[in-house]
Structures are given as structure tokens and as C-alpha cells.
């Protein structure tokens, strides 16, 4: 079983968070069908797979992480929690800097540092969404 944590925290201005991976549906399509995929997130987020656990308490998220083989996520709370649990996974980066916010124990996939936001320390509301900033699903699947 693998966990996907597709979305970063909703922005105050209701715009798409620029850290949200742009190609989740395409990526899920090319993950081998015999792998069970479990989505975690919060109420209001788009459901991408059949099994979607919303608003799990941290203790239950930890239990789920302990059971999974690995996980794929964006730069959000989940990547820190899984790191804290000692479970390496794949983080799909775009505008935030993995050297600051990432953990070397994970596979940190950043297409190019050219896409990083100039100011890494502002709210992400001020950064435009850019799907081109992410690596493509074919690249991600190589690391799964």
C-alpha cells in the first residue's frame, strides 16, 4: 500500500496552492494497478482514489504511515509527519525549496531551481500557480 497526500494547505485567498502537484490524475493512472493507493487529506479536497481518509487525527495518520510501503506527496504537513515517522517517500516540489523545507531522507523531485519562488518566507498566496514547475508523472514513476 502507498499513501498519496496530494494537496498542501488551502490558501486564504482561495487560489490554487502553488505547491499542489499538477498531474496527480495522470500519475495515478500509471501506478501499477496491483498497488493499493490510499489518499489522505482534509474535507473539501478532491478525491482522487477510492480510499480517501479525511481529517484523520495525527495518531491515526501515524498508524497508517507505519503500515504503508511508501508515500508520495507535495510540500505539506504530511511530508514532515512521515519523516518524523521514519518512513521515506517521494516529495514533488515546485516553488518551495527542498533544501530549506525538505528532508534528505526522502526522494525530493524538483524540476529546476529556476522555478523556486524568490522569497521562500512569504505566504504562498503571493506566488502564482505554475504547472510547468513540476516534474512529469513519467519521471515520478521511475522513483516509485
Amino acid at each position, binding site marked *: 500500500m502507498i499513501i498519496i497526500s496530494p494537496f498542501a494547505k488551502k490558501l486564504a485567498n482561495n487560489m490554487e496552492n502553488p505547491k499542489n502537484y499538477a498531474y496527480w490524475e495522470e500519475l495515478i493512472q500509471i501506478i501499477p494497478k496491483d498497488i493499493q493507493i490510499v489518499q489522505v487529506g482534509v474535507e473539501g479536497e478532491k478525491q482522487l482514489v477510492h480510499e480517501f481518509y479525511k481529517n484523520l487525527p*495525527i495518531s491515526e495518520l501515524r498508524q497508517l504511515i507505519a503500515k504503508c510501503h511508501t508515500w508520495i506527496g507535495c510540500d505539506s504537513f504530511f*511530508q*514532515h*509527519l512521515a*519523516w*518524523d515517522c521514519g518512513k521515506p517517500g517521494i516529495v514533488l516540489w515546485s516553488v518551495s525549496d527542498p*533544501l*530549506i523545507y*525538505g528532508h534528505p531522507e526522502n526522494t525530493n523531485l524538483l524540476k529546476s531551481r529556476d522555478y523556486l519562488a524568490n522569497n*521562500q518566507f512569504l505566504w504562498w498566496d503571493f506566488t502564482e500557480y505554475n504547472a510547468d514547475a513540476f516534474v512529469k508523472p513519467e519521471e515520478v514513476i521511475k522513483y516509485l
Partner: protein
Amino acid sequence: MNKVLCSVATRGRYHTTLPLVLNAIINQTRLPDKLVIFDDNDEPKDMRQEMIYQYFFQMLDIKKIPWEWVYAEKKGQHHIHQKANEMGFDWVWRVDDDAIPEPDVLGNLLGYTTIENIGAIGGSILTPPLKFDTSKSTGKVSDIDKEPNIQWNYIKQSKEVEHLHCSFLYRAGVHDYNLGLSRVAHREETLFTYGLYLKGYKIIVAPHAITWHFKNPEGGIRSESKQELYSHDETIFRNTIGFSDSTIVVLNAGAGDHIVFSHILPEISNPVIFTCYPEIVAGKSIAEANALFGDLDQYNIYKKMAQWNWKGSLEDAYRKLYL
């Protein structure tokens, strides 16, 4: 590098002590690398129209001291000092607008900047007639209610203390002023220098660095009569020194940040934690921290990383902030 910014915050003293202060700064034996005057007057004037100031500005140009006259935001001198603190200099020499330094003050204070881990150096701040016996003053914050300030008389020899008063030289950019104080900014310099001390920097009083303090009940950066403002600031001061044996931690950040922080928590001595996510890092509420300390910006990890032009990991940023 020992680039020194001289910063003067002024209010209501255009024609009393401020000219004396500026004259004294311009005639230091070791000149500052820049002079900035923060004008916090209710009705600021263009002092280039005033004859005495015209001469001052010309003297500064002749002596090649870059200078800037900044119209301040009328929020109090703590905001002004924080601006100076962030102007990119190695050291800031803050001089009050009624404190007239003798010509060798900056040079003598700078002589102490080679001491390892020095944070701030202050000299004597003398108000005639000299009526305080400071021979037994310790300079410790715990004695602040029991003794005259050690700077209120001649300082015979250098001594490590825990806080400074009025005008002094300090290492810039390593500690913030408490911006939660009211406009009167009562105790602001004590809180600031004691904060440096708590961060492990040495605070020293030095001999042969005499500043004459022409205390004047009229004018001044603290010219406010509302007692509640002083009480507000005094409460923040008392709350802060009440935690002097602890490391105050304020986690005013996201849930993921709390997790990252939790990895350095075992390294922090005697932490008192205020938290947004007690289920991740246990502690008291942020509202409580706000009520106790007034200003939480000094604990804002994102603000600090921006200030440090940070390139390292979030975990190391927390380490820098708290260890």
C-alpha cells in the same frame, strides 16, 4: 569588519539638546560610518532650513560621514531602534537625543568589540549632580529594583552586567527589540540588552566612555503622560524577567513546522513552550504568549529566516533561533 551606524531617535528637542548631541557625534575621535536621525516629532520640520543644522549637515559632508534624516512612524523609539538594528551594519551606536557623549566615547566602546561573544558595551551616563553611589551595583536584572543603575556614576573598571541603559554600542542584527511595547517604550533598552544577555552575548560596562545625560522633563522620545502605557510596558518587562531561567519558545507557525521543531526540542534547556498545535508539541497557547510578552515577531521563524537570508534547513533555522 567594524562598520558602525550611529542612530539618534528624537522628539521635541530640535532646539534644546539635539544640536548638542549631533555636535558631539560629529566631533568623535572615531567617527561613525553613518549617522541616521529618526525624527519622531508630532510635527516634523525640514531642518535644512535651520542655520545650526545647515552647519551640521555641511560638517558631516566635509568629514565624509554619510547621513540620513528619516521621518519616523510615531510608533515609539523601539520601532526606530529596530529599523537601525536591521540596516546592515556590524554595530549600532544608539545615542539618545538628550545624551551628549564626550569625544572619545565611540572609540573607547569600540575597543571592547574584540572580546569574544560581546553583545553590547555601555559607558557612564551621568546626570549632574551625581547623586548615586553605584560602587555596589551589580548590573544584574534581579537587582534592578534594589540598586542604582551602574551607569549612573563613573565606571572605574570594565565589568560584565546583564543590561544597559540609555545610550550604548551593540552588535546589530542578532536580537530584536520588543515591538509589543507601547509608544513610550518603557524599559525598551533594558529588555533589549537583557535579551542579548539571555542569548549568551556578553554585556559590558566600560570606563572612560562618558555621556552626559541632560535629562529634561519636556520633550523626548518618551513624552507621554498616560500611566497605562507605562504599566503595560512594565508588565511585559516583569513577565520577561520572570522567565529568565527558561528558554521561551513560541511556535507561531504551521503544523509541519512544529514537527520539524520537535527534533531540536531535546537540545533546548528548560523550555517554556507556547504552541499552535499542542497535539504535536505540548505547551501553552499563543494567546497567552501574546499577553505575556506583547511582541511575538522575534519568535517568527519565517521572519527570522527572511532576516537571515536563510539558505539552510528549517531545522537548522530553529536551532539558530533557540540554541
